[in-house]
Every structure is written in C-alpha cells, then in structure tokens.
C-alpha cells in the first residue's frame, strides 16, 4: 500500500526492535483508517454502478443510501475519527455540481450522527471549494491514497486534523470522488502517545513536510517543524507518507 504517491516500506534493518514496535503501531492505526475508507468506497461504487446500469445518472439524493455504511465506520472508529464520508467529483452528479455525504458524531455522547452541510455555492463568502484542497486534489490527480495534515480546517470542521482520503472510481473506470475521514491530531496523540512515551530515546512522527504529529519530547510538539531534518535519521512508516525521526543528531 502506498499513500501520497510514496512507495516505500519500513524495514528494521538496523535491528531496532523497539523502533519497529512504534512503527508497527502507527502503520496498524493508519491501515485501519484506510480499511474504513475502503468500506465506504465499495458501498459508493456499488451504488453508483447500480444506478448507471439502470441507465440513469446518480443524483445527490441517491447518496443518502451511503448513510448506513458511513455511520457504521464512524461508530467503529469512534475513538479516533471525527468525520467520515464521500466527497463527489466536480460535475459527476446529475443535479448539483458539488456534493458531500459526510457525517460527524453528535457533540453529545450517545447522540445521533449529524450530516455535515457546507456552503458549496461559488459566489458565497464561505464557499467550501474542496476541488482546490489537497486531500481532494491529491488522490484525484494521482490516483493514490492520501494523508493531508496536520492542518487547521477552520472553514470545514474547525479542528486541527489529519484528513485521510482514497480515490473512488466507478465500474466504468471514471473518477467519481474520494472517500475520506478526519482524524483530530488530539486523538492521534491520545492513541499513540503511550507507545511513544515507552520508547527510550527522543522520537517524533512527522509528515512529509517535516511537521511533527506526535513525539515523546517536549521540545517537539504537534504542529512544530523540525529545525534541521537533514541532520536526523528518518525511517519511513509503511502505509503512510510519514516518518519516524530520531531526535538525536548523528554527530
């Protein structure tokens, strides 16, 4: 599996078993998120093909049928994920130019999931133009899994998140949109910090831009950038565009 077009896998060829454990924890967390996206993508593709085979073009109301699989994944990933859905390719639907079937948990525990509605009209002040956003354009243009962030999504869900996406193509081979999930950095931190804290040397998980996601060192917190990444040893984490960086300079 590859994400953001990278195709590399981590091998603990330095024999560091402890580091391998940290890397495996990150990989398994990310693979499970992508497994949810595959479920949403499969449901979408099945629905899409069924409608096209009957000679119709899918419309926005047809996507309401995705509600159950989407909410199912949202509940399955409740510890980690704050939103799951399908974001339609520009112009793919018969009735509206843009649309998203995206669900978020209720703010109250035990409440019902809520559908996220964003302003999708181009003339509007708060137009949510997802076609220019990297989590959408990346998988659309390159046909690969994508992880974007950490970033502040203040026009969308008002959270500091990583967005995971996967391109979806119809049975006829046409790009029809992306399946996606938002994972708040705070949840990634809660899930991974115990593993990082147990590691005996200073270690950071960074994205491809060298931005820290989780670390076990107070000098390197989520959102900060590594000062001099070239002087540090970075090990790619399988299934992700991320790296584990040993924060001790090689001198």
């Amino acid at each position, binding site marked *: 599996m590859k994400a953001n077009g990278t195709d590399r896998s981590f091998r603990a060829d330095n024999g560091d078993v402890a580091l391998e454990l940290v890397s495996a924890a990150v990989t398994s967390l990310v693979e499970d998120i992508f497994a949810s996206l595959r479920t949403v993508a499969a449901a979408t593709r099945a629905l899409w093909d069924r409608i096209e085979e009957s000679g119709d073009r899918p419309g926005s109301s047809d996507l309401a049928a995705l509600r159950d699989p989407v909410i199912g994944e949202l509940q399955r990933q409740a510890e980690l994920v704050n939103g799951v859905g399908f974001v339609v390719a520009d112009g793919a639907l018969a009735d509206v130019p843009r649309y998203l079937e995206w669900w978020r948990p209720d703010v109250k525990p035990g409440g019902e999931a809520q559908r996220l*509605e*964003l302003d999708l009209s181009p003339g509007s*002040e*708060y137009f949510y133009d997802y076609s220019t956003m990297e989590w959408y354009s990346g998988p659309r243009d390159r046909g690969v899994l994508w992880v974007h962030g950490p970033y*502040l999504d203040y026009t969308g869900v*008002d*959270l*500091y998140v990583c967005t995971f996406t996967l391109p979806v193509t119809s049975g006829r081979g046409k790009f029809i949109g992306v399946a996606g999930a938002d994972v708040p950095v705070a949840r990634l931190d809660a899930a991974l910090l115990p593993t990082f804290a147990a590691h005996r040397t200073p270690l950071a998980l960074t994205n491809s*831009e*060298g931005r820290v996601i989780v670390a076990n060192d107070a000098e390197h917190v989520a959102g900060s950038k590594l000062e001099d990444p070239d002087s540090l040893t970075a090990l790619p984490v399988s299934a992700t565009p991320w790296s584990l960086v040993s924060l001790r300079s090689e001198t």
Partner: protein
Amino acid sequence: MAVEQLRGLTAVGAVLSPLAGSGPRTDAVVARISAAIGLGVIADGEQLPSEIDLATQLGVSTMTLREALAILREQGLVVTKRGRGGGSFVRASAEDVHARSLALLQELTVEGLRDLGDEHFAVAGATAVLATRRAVAADIARLRTLADRLAASEDAISSRRADSRFQIEVAVCSQSARLTRAEVNIQAELAAMVWLPRLGLNPADEAARHQQLVDAIETGDQAGARSLAEEYSALTIRRLIGLRMELARS
C-alpha cells in the same frame, strides 16, 4: 438550510451560536442577526433558516425569535414571504452593509476600538511569529495567492473578504486552533469597518504590505514578521479611530 450549512463555519458559528447568560432575549437576538447581516456573513437575498431551526441554534423560544423577526422586519433588514417557497429573507445591499458598519463604528467608543486593536496586536504578532516557525512551502503559496486576490479585488466587499481571509490564513499557518479562533472573531468585528469606502483603502497597497509579511515568514525572519504584523494591526486601528473621531466632529 442556512444554519445547517453554516455549522462548523467559525465566523458564522460565532454569530449564530447560542446566546449566553440571561436578560432580554429579544433584543439580543435582534442584535445578533443584524450584526450577521451587517458583517455580510448572511448575504443579501439569502434565506434565513426556518424559525424552529434558528430558535434552536440561538437557544431561544420560537416566541422570542418571532418577536425578534418582527423588529428586524420593521428595520427593513428582513422580508417575510408567505406560502410555497416562502420564509424570511435578508435584505442587505452593499449600501446597507456599509451603513450598518458605519453605525457599528459610531456605537464603539475610542477606548473600545483601542482595546479591540490591542487584542489584535497581540494575536497578529504572535501568529506571525508562530507562522514563521511553522509554515511550509504550501502555506507560503496559499498566503501569496490570497494577497494577490486582495490586490485584484474590485469592490469593497470582495476586498474585505480577501483581506480578512489573508489575515485568518496567517493564523492558520501558526497551527494554533485557539489563536485562529481569536483572529476569526476579531476579523468578524473589524473587517467590515476597515473596508468602509470612506477610509478609501487601496487594495493593491494593502496587498503589498501583506506580501512583505509573507516575505518575512518565508525567509524565517521571526522578529521582522512580528513587527510587520504588529505595525499593520496598529495602523488598522489608527485608521478606524481616526474615522471614529471624524464622525464625532461632523
């Protein structure tokens, strides 16, 4: 529909979130909705959410909301159409928006403006430093695009949008959710007044200042970025205080 759409959009969320505290609710609802219209958050011709949705969103009874809508109708800010496709619609031309921004400015005291400016000074300076430490290449490109959009803007409303969007985006680059929320709230108060036609700001000049800030962020000049952001925030509030004093004279 609008409120559903707007959920999660911070500036609007701040305007249409539940009212805090007790006291005369009708007045508070009127103030909140007319502020949203005045700031251009709810645009001319846009339909307000249903009475039930809007009352829920603001945390008031439908009775209170109906009283508030009656007052807004009298003020000419809202028209209600009956029947199929009916509902309450906002009436706010560019002139209306400017008139309300001017009225808002007149309601503020010089001290109140100075204090708003002080808050912005703190937030703008801090976000500029953090953005300089944390911005990556894609952030720089986004900031430049927004500054270019301001330079190319052709009317006060699009200048206001591009300008406030740029300043919010600097906060986004700081990676701080709290500072970004603070900047969004400050922009909701400031931006409409800053782009009042009476102040005669030239979008290209303002955009050039923003590009200077991006230069400092890009080159990693933390002290330079801080002082440019602080100077710009101080200049903004000086302009508004100047206009406020002028209004007091006339």
